[in-house]
Structures are given as C-alpha cells and as structure tokens.
C-alpha cells in the first residue's frame, strides 16, 4: 500500500476564541496535485501552515510522509518545501546567495549544495538573474526564487500558498505550467480563492468554507479515475442499470433528460471504463451516440457545496 504524503486527521485550530480550522481530515497521495479552494478566511492558509510546521494544531494530527508534524517536526519539515503567500524573501540577498543559504539550512551537504542550487536556478529559469539582489526582482521572479528554495532538498511535498497572487496574466500562465510540470515528481498542495486557477492545475480539489472541509472532488483522471459524459438512446432506468453493472463505476448522474428516450449521463469511475461502458450499452441494445471526457464544473460544484452548507445553517 502506498503511504499518503499528507495524512491529516481531524485537524483543528483555534485562534483564541475563533475557530479557524474545524476537524479537517485530508489524505493526498504521492505525485498528486491537490487544490485547496475556499473564500478568504476559510482556513486554507492555516492548514498549510500546520502542514509546513509553522503552526501547531489545537487538536487532531497531521503527518507528512508518515512523520508527525508536531512530534517529528524537524524531520517532517525536511520533507516539505513551502512557499508562503506573497513569497517573503530576504531582499538584501542575491538570488544565488539566498538559495545557498536556504540549501544549507535544509541540510544539503557542502559537496552537493552548489550543484543542487544550480539545478534549481536552471529549473526555474533564473540563470539571467541569479546574481541580482532579490529586492530588485519583479514579482514573478521573486515567486520563482521562492519556489526554487522550496525545491531544494528534494522535498516529498511542495506547499504553495496562492502562488499566482499579484502576477500579471503572462506570469500566471507560466506559473500554472510550472506547477503542472512539478506535479507527478512530487505531491503538491496549492491554495487559491480563484476557481479557475485550481481547475487548471489540480488533480483533485478540497473545498473549504468557514474552516470546514465540504468535500474532496477529482478534477481529472490522474489518480486513476475517470469521468465521462455519454449521450445514450434508451429508457433511463434501463440505461442506469446497465451502466451501474460495469465494474469500477461509482456514480451516475443524468445531466439532461428529454421526452425522447435520449439522455446525457455523467459517469464517475475509479478506473478507466470507457470501453467497458460502450460494450455494455451496445450489448444491451442501447444506442450510444457519443462519449467524451467530462471535466468537473468546479463553479457549479463550489456553489452547490457552499449553498448546501448555508441551507443547512438556516
């Protein structure tokens, strides 16, 4: 069994009388990009800070690659690369000087330090600015320097707090591409209060509101699952039963039904099922008119989940 890189159980954080994070449980596997989505003040940054070892949870536990963030704090911090919101850096230092400093703090051996820093400089496209004082860099470059320091020491988990904040449109696109390219090699936890940002970079999304986790949803099939949209001719009950019999199918929603025996179904599955679905429908005599990948409509999902909660609160 693969160990989860992030395993948080009933994580709770009080700031004085204010409850910032309320019993959040979360598991993120190796190589996954998990997005934390929620409005400002929903507890995203607090969760990141607990996982990064900056804050202690008031209750609950959190482990990074099996290491408790409180009991094995130093060892856990060695496995985390953290980029706080607004990428705070030492403005008086040069880019390379700063990366060497952070590399030493992360315990890189003297022999490997220069090579590791050079690799990070190359990976983040900082060759042209590595001798420049950080205070003189643009916001986009500062963000890259912050990510470069987070990658030093090859951490299992990269935590990015609002990485596209304050960037111009071109820098936002570059940052998205960078995050996607870093996924797969390592687990990434990224926050944003902008739906589109999470939708574009994350494999799964955890939606937070008022410190509570409302749900975790797959956005793309990178974790082995699949979400498909099918246009099928046939009676709804029969089609549903036929689809449900296919191994791996976890949920079937009817997106658009009409008076005619023709409807659109959205099928969630925990493994690739496209061929099996097509075969099952045709074998049962239903007309399969079209089948396509169905990305999650994050906006509707967010509104539905936050709306449900407000409804429940009333």
């Amino acid at each position, binding site marked *: 069994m693969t160990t989860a890189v992030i395993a948080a159980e009933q994580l709770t954080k009080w700031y004085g009388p204010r409850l910032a994070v309320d019993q959040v449980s979360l598991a993120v596997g190796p190589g996954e990009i998990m997005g934390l989505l929620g409005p400002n003040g929903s507890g995203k940054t607090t969760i990141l800070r607990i996982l990064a070892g900056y804050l202690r949870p008031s209750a609950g536990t959190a482990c990074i690659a099996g290491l408790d963030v409180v009991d094995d704090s130093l060892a856990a911090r060695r496995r985390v690369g953290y980029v706080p919101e607004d990428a*705070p850096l030492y403005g008086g230092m040069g880019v390379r000087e700063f990366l060497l400093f952070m590399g*030493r703090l992360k315990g890189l051996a003297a022999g490997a330090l220069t090579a590791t820093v050079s690799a990070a400089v190359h990976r983040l496209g900082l060759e042209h600015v590595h001798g420049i004082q950080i205070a003189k860099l643009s916001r986009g470059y500062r963000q890259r320097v912050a990510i470069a320091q987070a990658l030093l020491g090859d951490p299992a988990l990269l935590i990015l707090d609002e990485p596209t904040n304050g960037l111009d449109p071109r820098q936002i696109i570059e940052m998205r591409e960078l995050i996607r390219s870093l996924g797969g090699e390592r687990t990434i936890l990224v926050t944003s209060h902008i739906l589109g940002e999470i939708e574009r970079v994350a494999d799964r999304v955890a939606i937070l509101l008022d410190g509570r986790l409302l749900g975790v949803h797959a956005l793309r099939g990178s974790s082995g699952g699949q979400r498909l949209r099918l246009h099928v001719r046939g009676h709804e009950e029969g089609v549903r039963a036929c689809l449900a019999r296919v191994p791996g199918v976890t949920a079937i929603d009817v997106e658009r039904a009409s008076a005619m025996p023709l409807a659109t179904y959205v099928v969630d599955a925990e493994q690739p099922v496209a061929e099996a679905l097509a075969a099952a429908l045709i074998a049962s005599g239903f007309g399969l008119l079209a089948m396509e990948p169905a990305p999650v409509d994050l906006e509707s999902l967010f509104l539905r989940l936050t709306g449900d909660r407000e409804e429940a609160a009333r």
Partner: protein
Amino acid sequence: MRNFLTLLVKEEKAVFSSPIAYAIVAVYLLLMGFTFTLMLFLNRTAELVRIFFQAAVLLLLIVPVVTMRLLAEERRSGTLELLLTSPVREIEIVLAKFVASLTLVLLMLVLTASDAIVLGIYADPDWGPIYSGFLGLLLLAAALAAIGLLVSGLTSNQIVAAVVAMGVGILLWMIDSIGYLLPDPFDTIVTSLSLVAHFTPFATGALFLSDLGFFLTVVLACLLLTVRTLARR
C-alpha cells in the same frame, strides 16, 4: 551547529551591511572619545571608572537600536515563516541573532579599549578595575541584547521594539531608587533587580560571583523566553 553557523553568518552580514551599525559605532566612539579626553585633562587620573559608567548609559540607549530589527523585521516581512518552516531549531535562530548583535557591541568595546591603551602608554594604571570594568560592560551589553531580542520577538514594529527595550533597560538600571520607598523585603527584591547595583562592583574593580550570576541569569531567562515566544505558535 551547522545551522547556527549558517544563521550567524547571515545575521552578521545583515548587521554589518546596515548603515545603522556604522552610525551607532561612530556616535558611540565620538561620545566616548570626547568624555575620555575631557576626563584625562581635567582629572589627570589614570582610571576609567567614569568612562565605564558613561559607556553603560550609552549601551542602555544603543543596544535596543541594534536589537530592534532582529525578530521584528523578520516577522514584518514574513521571512520568519520561511525560517521557522525550515528544518531549524528555534534556539539556533535565537542564539545566532543574539551572538550577531553582541558582536557589534563587542567591536565597540574593543575600540573603546584604545582608552586603556593610552593610559597604559602615558601612566601606570591599576589594570584590575579596567579588566573588570570591560567585563562588566560586556555582561551589561549581553543582558540588554537579550532583553532587546525578547522584545523584538514580541512585535513586528522595529520602533516599538526599540522604545520598549530602551524603557525596560532604563527602568532596570535605576529601579533600585524605588527601593528606599518600599518596606522589607520588597526593597531588597527591587534592589537586587537593579542593573546599576550589579554593574557598579565591576566598574570599580570588585568582582562578585553574585553579580556575574545576575547578568547570566538575565541573559538565559530572556533567551529562553524568546525561544518560547517563537515556539508558541
């Protein structure tokens, strides 16, 4: 140890790349040189007792300015979050900052030693009180630096850190005065907290372990409280 040295180098660079450090050293040396010349030609005695007391009063004002940015600036700029999420112990951060701030004060004291050298060349001073006086100044500076570091760890505003640390230092310097108004045993307690009461024996050449213990206790207590301040988050 490696982390401590890495942090110390960074802190030393920060201290000595700041114009504040050079302004402080220059003003300190100017005032000390002025007083030394005046004392030498007016009193014509080969001793530095008055110089030590003037240096002590200047340290009450200068050390908080040296320590004000140590943690307050890190907190304001957000780099404290970067440091505390690195695999570094709080004690290493605190010690590196403390030693770095003390280095600047040590440099000032070493430069003040030129006064003693002048006395040694042109007269035959009693060296005992001179050595103990410098030791007293170093201990006083260490205590003030530890207090300043603790206050700097409690705020993100450098000016607030400097003003509060200065206030605490000056209050502890003269707190024995209020002892005359208090009944026993409060007068003894208050007097035993006084910086001037523990510094005077050093400046006059009388060494007591209790005075040494007082300064070391203040340093250790403030450093431990600073570590607790960073750890409590």
